């Protein structure tokens, strides 16, 4: 393959949001970039809820709203705590979200990634699809100098390899750059796409035009496992899914499909999906280990971005924006080193980590570093006991049955204390506050 004789300035492994952001920024700045994606097209292997946070993309492609395939802009967020028959909701809806440049959109990843990939090509990068990177190539000193693929016989060389290969990250793991992901640090999510006429969606969710609603749910729907459910409105479809930590699934022997079926048939969810036609069933992992699970991010000739680096803020369900931001920052680091004609050594690439430390990415992940462990250790309470107690309290309070309010208050308090001791509750509250700070 003659065109690959000269080393590229950079090779990007993967065409998800992190790889596309990295390839786009480097190509736009004039670097000679090769991007390799194993899917038939960008997005064909990728799954997300999916909420797109505009800010991260706007910093890369300011005019994206005119071109990107966006579904609905989110004007209402519903947070539900569910037990088997009820949900207690906190809803926030504001006309402020009907702004000229909305802040959050629902998207369909297969279509969005395809669009982003077309922008990467426009910016001048060479993109190879249907090609899987099988290993990294190193020189005698151990520096990464290229990749091997399942298509090209000889290795393809580059000054730096950007690993944007997602949560499974086989290339980096098999090259010993990082450990295998632990089952405790990763969630398995299953998701379905349900189609409905847009008028039905608008009537059902009280929407007009391209307004959208998103629902995040937790409680007994995950059967005591650490996890959450979600339901997002798209233009003519609804994304519905549920995910739990893999080690929890392994202990409980609940099948992911059964869990999703139960969620879809919950009395609060079922009417929202009525008469819809399901057109796709997908599954994907989500890195949820947070700050403490972040592996080494740079070394001689390589740099890690996105899910491969565990960059997901599970508390706020942010991943794609961290992916795009880490991809952009990595690209900016590589661009500045290339311009200065500096080598892609471990010491020079460490600049990426310094830049990340200054950004919201590391600040947010650091803030919540205690949350994964807290939820893991107390899952029975957070995903069983408390949701049930909350539902019982609500029902006691709202049911009008001749019992006076003081007695009702006492009954609610007694129920909490008997189910979970006062010390237990205070301890949980303390732990939540500490992990949140």
């Amino acid at each position, binding site marked *: 393959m003659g065109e690959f004789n000269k080393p590229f300035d950079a090779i990007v492994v993967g065409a998800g949001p992190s790889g596309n952001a990295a390839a786009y920024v480097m190509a736009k700045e004039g670097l000679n970039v090769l991007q390799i994606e194993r899917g038939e097209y960008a997005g*064909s292997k990728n799954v997300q809820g999916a909420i797109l946070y505009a800010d991260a993309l706007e910093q890369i492609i300011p005019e994206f709203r005119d071109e990107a395939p966006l579904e609905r802009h989110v004007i209402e967020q519903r947070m539900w705590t569910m037990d088997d028959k009820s949900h207690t909701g906190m809803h926030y809806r504001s006309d402020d979200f009907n702004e000229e440049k909305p802040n959050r959109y629902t998207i369909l990843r297969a279509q969005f990634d395809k669009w982003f990939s077309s922008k990467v090509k426009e910016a001048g990068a060479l993109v190879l699809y249907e090609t899987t990177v099988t290993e990294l190539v190193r020189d005698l000193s151990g520096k990464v100098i290229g990749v091997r693929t399942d298509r090209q016989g000889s290795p393809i060389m580059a000054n730096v390899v950007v690993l944007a290969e997602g*949560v499974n990250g086989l290339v980096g793991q098999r090259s010993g750059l990082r450990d295998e992901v632990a089952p405790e640090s990763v969630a398995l999510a299953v998701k379905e796409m349900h189609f409905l006429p847009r008028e039905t969606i608008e009537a059902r969710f009280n929407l007009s035009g391209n307004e959208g609603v998103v629902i995040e749910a937790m409680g007994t729907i995950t059967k005591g496992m650490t996890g959450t459910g979600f339901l997002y409105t798209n233009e003519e479809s609804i994304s519905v899914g549920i995910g739990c930590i893999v080690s929890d699934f392994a202990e409980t022997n609940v*099948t992911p499909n059964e869990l999703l079926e139960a969620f879809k048939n919950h009395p609060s969810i079922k009417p929202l999906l009525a008469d819809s036609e399901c057109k796709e*069933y997908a599954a994907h*992992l989500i890195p949820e280990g947070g700050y403490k699970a972040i592996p080494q991010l740079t070394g001689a000739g390589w740099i890690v971005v996105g899910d491969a680096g565990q960059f997901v803020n599970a508390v706020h369900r942010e991943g794609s924006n961290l992916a795009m931001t880490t991809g952009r920052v990595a690209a900016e680091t590589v661009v500045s080193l290339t311009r200065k004609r500096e080598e892609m050594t471990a010491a020079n690439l460490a600049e990426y980590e310094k830049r990340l430390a200054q950004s919201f990415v590391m600040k947010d992940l650091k803030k919540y570093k205690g949350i994964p462990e807290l939820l893991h250790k107390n899952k029975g309470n957070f995903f069983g006991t408390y949701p049930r107690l909350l539902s019982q309290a609500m029902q006691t309070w709202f049911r009008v049955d001749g019992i006076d309010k003081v007695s009702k208050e006492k009954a609610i308090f007694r129920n909490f204390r008997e189910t979970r001791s006062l010390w237990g509750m205070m301890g949980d509250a303390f732990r939540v506050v500490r992990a949140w700070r």
Partner: protein
Amino acid sequence: MSDVMTAPRAKVEEKLFQNRYLVDAGRPHIKVKAHTTPSASLLAMTTLCPAGCYTQTESGQVEVAADGCLECGTCRIVTRKTGEIEWNYPRGGFGVLYKFG
């Protein structure tokens, strides 16, 4: 009991019919290594795999049929310590093809 166990499995297969796949005939990307008794982790995959790819034979071994695989990687992570399976991505272009994702 057996009804409860088989009903959702059948349903998963129905769901997989809605998906698009390009199967790399004769080159499965996941293989279970020969064994007499599966570890608890490998056995757990018979319920854990979101596509129902893993089954236990009558003689107790665990088998995989990866045609409907969603490429999530769960089985790889769960058996990472026991090393009972060999897991690779399908060759470039093959495997599941999400239309919506």
